[in-house]
């Protein structure tokens, strides 16, 4: 399938887990972010998520962001095909 690239936005599939899934209300959503010439970054995504869901900051939930199943640096550039995941503090075991 050919990917349609919007000139002004990147379109991301964003998974969320545990308490973040409860806050967002769905385990996967589609989110658009402005496409930047220098590349849209994880930091841009974080800013947008925290604007949309201020309760994440209010509850001081440390949110990790994974890109393609790896924890990403804030400066990492993200693109249309990337799989994004929002990860609250982990508690396995």
């Amino acid at each position, binding site marked *: 399938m050919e990917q349609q690239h919007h000139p002004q936005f990147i379109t991301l599939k964003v998974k969320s887990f545990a308490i973040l899934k409860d806050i967002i209300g769905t385990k996967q959503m589609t989110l658009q972010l402005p496409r930047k010439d220098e590349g849209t970054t994880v930091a841009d995504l974080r800013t947008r998520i925290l604007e949309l869901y201020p309760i994440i900051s209010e509850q001081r939930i440390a949110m*990790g962001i994974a890109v393609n199943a790896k924890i990403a640096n804030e400066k990492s550039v993200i693109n249309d095909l990337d799989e994004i*995941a929002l*990860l609250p503090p*982990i*508690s*396995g*075991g």
Partner: protein
Amino acid sequence: MFSISEHPIDVEMLLANVKDDSAGASILFFGTVRNHNDGNAITAIYYEAYVKMAEEAMAKIEAESVKRWNLKKFAAVHRIGNLKIGEVSVAIAVSSEHRAEAFEAGRYAIDRIKSEVPIWKKETISGKGGIWAQGTPMAGG
């Protein structure tokens, strides 16, 4: 080998998976659902995982454990879904030439699982309902 399972964990099978004729020591660790936490009575725990990332994180922990402790074999499994009190939530088996490495590797692996593998638990607290447990923030890369 590592797996995430919705089915009860068979710890004896896990131990069988690390059988090795060159090993002189094998250890099995398993964690079970406890009926209390932080002064609250717990009646059940629900576990959720980001399976793809958990498998990758575990493969790394396995490779590093095997290398660091010169293990013969390594096997681990984490359960997801609804668990009752006393059920096994996580299990690790390792085999090595001598006991010291096996004990240390088991401890090392469970500590890393708890701090690096994207799995979350929601405790059903008597009288309060389900509450996601406080956890360890995932380290930035």
